[in-house]
């Protein structure tokens, strides 16, 4: 029954004072948002911090929620802005040499070296994730919005505040690299 209720309705119910509506929303989106943050930040501690911040912001600004935009657009826009702001403040230098994100490579290697994770994933999966972690963050982001949030290209463009063609182009490059990484 609760799964039939739309995100927008649940959010408006929460604004009206129904705490259980928020719980449904949270359970529905906590995993995708967490993975989105984790894959973007490539740092677990930072991802957890930003993940918490996303929901706190949503709770505090709930009175300002206007049902003119899709809830997932609203939520992921919050997450995107927090990610950008955090890294600007930290002055993180992302070294891109020959299209490879150095930090991402290190993170991917660290992930791949964990034996438990290796047992769960087959070679293709490992390779996919390794290649994925080397994508520039703009391409990672559009791919994550597609996979985790289930957004279409137009909604991706709206969330990131970019043109439709730009969103298409980024996604196209991401898919191409992933395919080539898989040897397809």
């Amino acid at each position, binding site marked *: 029954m609760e799964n039939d209720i739309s995100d927008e309705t649940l959010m408006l119910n929460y604004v009206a004072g129904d*705490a259980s509506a928020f719980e449904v929303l949270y359970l529905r989106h906590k995993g995708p948002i967490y993975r989105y943050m984790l894959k973007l930040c490539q740092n677990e501690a930072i991802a957890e911090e930003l993940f918490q911040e996303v929901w706190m912001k949503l709770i505090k600004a709930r009175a300002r929620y206007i049902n003119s935009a899709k809830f997932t657009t609203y939520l992921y826009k919050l997450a995107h802005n927090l990610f950008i702001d955090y890294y600007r403040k930290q002055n993180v230098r992302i070294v891109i040499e020959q299209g490879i994100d150095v930090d991402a490579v290190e993170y991917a290697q660290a992930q791949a070296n964990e034996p438990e994770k290796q047992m769960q994933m087959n070679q293709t999966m490992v390779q996919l*994730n390794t290649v994925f972690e080397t994508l520039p963050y703009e391409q990672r982001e559009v791919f994550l919005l597609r996979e985790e949030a289930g957004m279409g*290209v137009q909604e991706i463009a709206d969330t990131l505040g970019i043109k439709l063609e730009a969103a298409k182009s980024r996604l196209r490059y991401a898919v191409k690299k992933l395919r080539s990484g898989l040897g397809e």
Partner: protein
Amino acid sequence: MVDNKNNDKDLHDYLQGDSDISNNYRKSNTLEPPAHLNEKILLAAREAINEPELKAKAVFHKSPWALPVSIAAVISLSVSLIVTMQQETGQPLISEPKPALYDSTIILEEKVDSKPAPVKEGLFTADDISAQTSKQDALQDNIPASASLGVTDTYHTEETVRQLKDKHELSSLKKSRSNENTAPVISNDEKIEKRMTLEAAPAVHNEVLELEREQPFTQEEKVLLAIKALWHAGDFNQARQVYGEFIKNHPDFNLKYIKEILGVELYQALNE
């Protein structure tokens, strides 16, 4: 060109949702946030609902009294603003009709044949008198072009004279330098050439003067103007009586200023 087409096809295939890339990604990425984060966030969400300030805001927005109270507040604010402005300017924003100092008619009479005594300055302005006489030229000869009444040199009869009425007769006024009661001659016993009603003229005139001065008359000034009005109404005894009382109560009042208000001639007449 071929590359672009292939790329578009790849993207199109991928967007169908069932690609190897998507399937492999979803299977390999199932991480969830830690439990302590879940508890923290859900608790914050419940507490936020119970915040009193938000409850108060909600009550206000849902209150049926919000609009009427707002309207009442606007009305009371407007009224207080009007009252404050009235107090600051010292004048009522909604003007009240001022009572006339006296109700009289000054009738000018002239001799057709003889040359009437000259009208002294300080009484009224000929230009302000609307003439309905065939002897307008004579009148013009007899009445000075300008005279002063009040603080300024111009008597604003154009603004104050509404119509000519016949209420009083000013029999005769002779100018005399004797010890008898003297008054500036302003007319003779000839035909009434024209009549002038100054029912509310002095009061309105004073009002006009006040506006010109941009400040209201003091009580002393008002008394002096009233003395002047009585004199011109022909009530000389009353004018002298009031003047005597004024001098008695205000021995230190600037004599020069009294002369300025009353006019030199009237001042001399009152002090003889």
